[in-house]
């Protein structure tokens, strides 16, 4: 089918095909027959059965849909870009950031501010690191550019707070040292959702 057919707006000149939708009754007797037929068809009871079946499924077969949100949460995709996290090295517990400044450079909304200095071992250390979340557009460039997988996007999407500063300091984003064993490695862009295969549904092509 070419594009011209779609662009043809002269309604009534195309070759329309009438669907067979049955006939509406013409005489009074036909109307009466239709009423009787529909009355005794039992479709109403099919509806009753469907709702009862769903109730049985929900109550006894564990198919309740409700997620009690603040107490239960659905798993979100690892691709999701929420509040940033600063990861630590698993062996030493030291933060991974090497102070290269690439994230600050690439940030298109200029929301990352960092300051570095040399420590006593002549290693670069991060003396100051903040992200202005009022400006951040969560584009994910900083996580993409980071050579050390130090700054990543976490799954923390509930960002309501009394003040923006609650999230934006380096210490706030850094994995707490006692939670080091719980630190999740960032799957990266293009990662698939957990249980993605199980959640695939057939497209209902029947109708």
């Amino acid at each position: 089918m070419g594009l011209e057919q779609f662009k043809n707006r002269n309604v009534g000149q195309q070759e329309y095909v009438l669907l067979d939708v049955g006939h509406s009754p013409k005489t009074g007797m036909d109307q009466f027959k239709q009423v009787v037929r529909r009355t005794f068809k039992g479709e109403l009871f099919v509806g009753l059965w469907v709702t009862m079946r769903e109730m049985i499924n929900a109550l006894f077969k564990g198919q309740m849909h409700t997620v009690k949100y603040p107490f239960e949460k659905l798993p979100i995709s690892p691709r999701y870009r929420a509040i940033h996290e600063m990861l630590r090295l698993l062996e030493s517990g030291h933060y991974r950031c090497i102070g290269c400044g690439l994230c600050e450079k690439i940030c298109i909304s200029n929301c990352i501010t960092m300051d570095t200095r040399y420590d006593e071992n002549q290693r670069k250390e991060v003396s100051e690191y903040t992200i202005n979340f009022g400006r951040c557009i969560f584009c994910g460039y900083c996580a993409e550019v980071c050579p050390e997988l130090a700054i990543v996007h976490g799954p923390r999407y509930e960002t309501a707070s009394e003040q923006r500063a609650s999230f934006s300091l380096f210490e706030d984003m850094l994995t707490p040292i006692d939670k080091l064993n719980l630190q999740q490695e960032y799957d990266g862009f293009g990662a698939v959702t957990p249980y993605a295969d199980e959640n695939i549904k057939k497209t209902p092509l029947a109708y």
Partner: protein
Amino acid sequence: MEVTTYTNVETFVTHLPEVTAVGVWIKAIIILAVISAIAGFGTYIERKVLAFMQRRLGPMHVGPYGLLQLVADGIKLFTKEDIVPQNANRLIFMLAPIITAATAFIALAAVPVFPDFTIPEWIPVIGGTFVPSIAADLNVGILFVLGMMAAGLYGPLLAGMAQANKWGIIGAARTAIQFLSYEVVTGLSILAPIMLVGSLSFVDFNNAQAGGISHWLIWQQPVAFVLFLIAGFAETNRTPFDLLEHEAEVVSGYATEYSGMRWGMFFIGEYANMITISIIAAVVFLGGYSEGGLGWLTIILKVGFFFFLMLWVRAAWPHVRPDQLMWLCWKVLMPIAVINVVITGIVMMV
């Protein structure tokens, strides 16, 4: 309780202990307390059942499994501002919800809510008092109840007309056509069982079906039962006939301008009416409380079934249009009801 089939009202009454004023008072208090509690609890049940049928949880957070939701709702209703719109007719606007709630409970005065019983002697003051099954055992009980439920239509009607709101007016008009029309079907459908039993008293209906399930009137009058159920749904303003306050069409119909406890009284009235219709259906067609000592349990189960049926139907079926409602009433249900009455009469004569 001894189960005996009495042939007429006089012999039945002489077999019972004397009904004193104290007994009637106690019965009235029991009815008010139990039905108000059930009517309030019904809103919780309704929300739960509808939620389960949509695979949701329903109210969960107030109390265990949301059981105290009723209390929270009550506090909310009582503390809300009582708004009377500027152009409304103040007196009628404030009176209308009382009419709905009052007529619903007055109707319950002549309905057998539980079997009769005698208060044990060891209880002080009221010990030994015989509590009848009906607060006011009228010999025209069914007429009285149907009349009271018909009078209840003045609640929505006056409410809709008094509130100076176009949705209210439409709701009031729908009230008039719907309740008046289905009153006819209710009366005609229940006429056939009345002919069979030969009495208008609920007690006689109950005793006429005392011989077990095979004696239930539903087997003799299945058509009348279905008609009564359909008309009952319409009269209690339940889906698929809840046109009076159908949100998608008329905001909230006759209750649009109401808030707080005045709105709550419409709700209590509606749920009390649901219970009344359930009890009438149970007593007239399903044998009532006639199963010996278990009568109180079986009547509760039967009423509970009809109550659940109303919620079930609400979850499953769509609304009908007002013109379909009228068509169904005058062109289908009423002729069938008349034919049913005629056939019943012919069979009784032959």
